[in-house]
């Protein structure tokens, strides 16, 4: 057992009470779902960031991941399916003092919300996007989605998915994001560092987190227990910082390239708008 895994299992006491809406716990997530550890990583990163919590707003769409906004004791907006990014865009422009973070699922962000994702990246809207990729639509009980690997089984790909998936880092990078990283939910420390970097980054920063959905995707694809699925993703990943995002596609059973793909500076939407008038 590696050090990161033991961190999850021993469940250290975290001084996080103040960051979570305790009156909303327990959460609705299945046991073994990656979302719990992801929320923990986010809170740790937020604590380290030194950001004024009264000026941090979280926006989610709809999905299992979309419930994240509701558990954090921050200004939180649980919007409609796919629309977290345009809502976040308005929120940021309505009050540029805010640090605006979108936490949502793969289906929410790159299927129904895909158009918003690429355009917010293109504009370099100054928001952080945390995309939890469980390779399916968890909330609606495990249908295929835009990230489902070819060949994978879901409730709407009973013969194996015949479509090719998007790679979220490739899409983000090609669309103009300033920071693009991918980790699995078990890369606890690296994930936390990466979220921290993304929070501190000016511009459109994206962290994709590969996360087990043992209840649907894991079960359909015979990935064993929740922990086995989590470990499988972790063990099949290779860290390649700075590698070409075009090479980040995920094949069924293949390696998962993780790391920080893009970290660059360019003017945000508001910077360039101010300069233009």
């Amino acid at each position, binding site marked *: 057992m590696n050090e990161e895994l033991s961190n999850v299992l021993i469940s250290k006491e975290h001084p996080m009470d103040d960051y979570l809406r305790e009156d909303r716990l327990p959460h609705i997530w299945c046991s073994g779902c990656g979302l719990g550890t992801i929320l923990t990583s986010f809170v740790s990163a937020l604590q380290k960031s030194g950001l004024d919590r009264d000026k941090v707003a979280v926006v989610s769409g709809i999905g299992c991941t979309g419930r994240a906004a*509701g558990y954090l004791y921050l200004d939180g907006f*649980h919007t*409609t399916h796919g629309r977290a990014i345009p809502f976040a865009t308005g929120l940021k422009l309505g009050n540029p003092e805010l640090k605006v973070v979108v936490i949502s699922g793969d289906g929410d962000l790159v299927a129904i919300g895909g158009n918003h994702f690429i355009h917010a990246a293109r504009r370099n809207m100054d928001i952080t996007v945390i995309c939890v990729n469980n390779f399916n639509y968890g909330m609606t009980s495990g249908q295929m989605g835009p990230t489902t690997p070819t060949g994978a089984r879901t409730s709407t790909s009973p013969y194996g998915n015949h479509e090719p998936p998007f790679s979220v880092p490739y899409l983000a990078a090609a669309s103009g994001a300033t920071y693009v990283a991918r980790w699995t939910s078990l890369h606890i420390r690296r994930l936390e560092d990466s979220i921290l970097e993304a929070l501190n980054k000016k511009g459109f920063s994206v962290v994709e987190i590969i996360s087990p959905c043992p209840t649907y995707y894991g079960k359909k694809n015979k990935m064993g227990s929740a922990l086995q699925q989590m470990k499988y993703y972790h063990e099949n990943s290779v860290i390649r910082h700075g590698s070409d995002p075009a090479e980040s596609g995920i094949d069924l059973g293949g390696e998962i390239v993780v790391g920080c793909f893009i970290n660059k500076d360019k003017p945000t939407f508001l910077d360039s708008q101010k300069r233009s*008038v």
Partner: protein
Amino acid sequence: MANNGILQGSFFMDGDTACAEGALAAGCRFFGGYPITPATEIAERMVLRLPQVDGTYIQMEDEIASMNAVLGASWGGARAMTATSGPGFSLMMENLGLGIMTETPCVVVNVQRGGPSTGMPTLVGQGDMMQARWGSHGDYEIIALAPSSPQELFDLTIRAFNLAEKYRTPVLVMTDETVGHMSERVIIPPPEEIEHYPRRKPDVPPSADYLPYKSEPNSVPPMACAGDGYRVHVTGLTHNEKGYPDTVNLDVQQQMLERLINKIQHNKDDIIELHEDQVEGADIVVVAYGISARTAARPIRLAREMGLKVGLLKLVTVWPFAEERIRELAPKIKAFVVPEINMGQIVLEVERCAAGQTETILVPHAGGGLHKTKDVLATIKKFA
């Protein structure tokens, strides 16, 4: 121009420009939109003018995004709006519902054109009036105003912003291509004469006890925005007074929905604005709104010259509907005549409220043009 960047004085401008200037005078500082004829001129005016008043314009990738950006901006503390026409209005419907559910003040302008679908992009229509009322899923109340002139587009856009704040809800300005594109005199009063209903903020300091969706006596809770320190939770799910989702408790749904509906229903006296001309003692009452209220003026005048007793009831507020006034008039008159540039929408409401006490006659128009004087006049004469 007054030194705060807001126009003041007498101008010759088109309706779309007047709408934009009204929004700025009302304190609008965010516009998110997507170009569409015949509403584009509003966006074009806003992108030019917003930087002069420290506001922000953004052209979103579509109208779904525009509607959401407007909601987000409002939660960021800005007075926010968008403007569109039929196809874009359809795309806004889901998230108009989010605005209603989360009680987000904002203004949506629909410069109506001929429909359905892409229809007649450059020509007038009034076919979205029922969509304005029922276009988003679920049950709700909505406020919709219908200007008949550039001056009214200016005035009613201001009123829309104030109603949006007062009742914490999206307000629709349902204008049309003819009004949007016609140029007329518009008087812009000095700032001190322009009504400004400020956003009501909580009167308690931030604490866990603060209930963002608490039912106040007038059913409208004060609004803490993002960054105000209250750490609000806002959701489109059925929610309790804390704003927390509760999607299984029927009492929570009942209370929430009743409050959303009652805050408008119980304040109809304040919200509904009607312009009446010789309605008392009339035999025929023409019920009209938007451009149709203006095209009705001539046939009404001609009918009066023939000695007929004809009144005009102009619906400045179309939603909530002027139910009580129609009920009151119905037993006293021979007929309601309802000219509208659609195949019969608001006439259904008039008929419902008339409840068989008098005739209710539609003068339809399929769209793309205005009613002919003779058509409205013939209907008036037939029932007088």
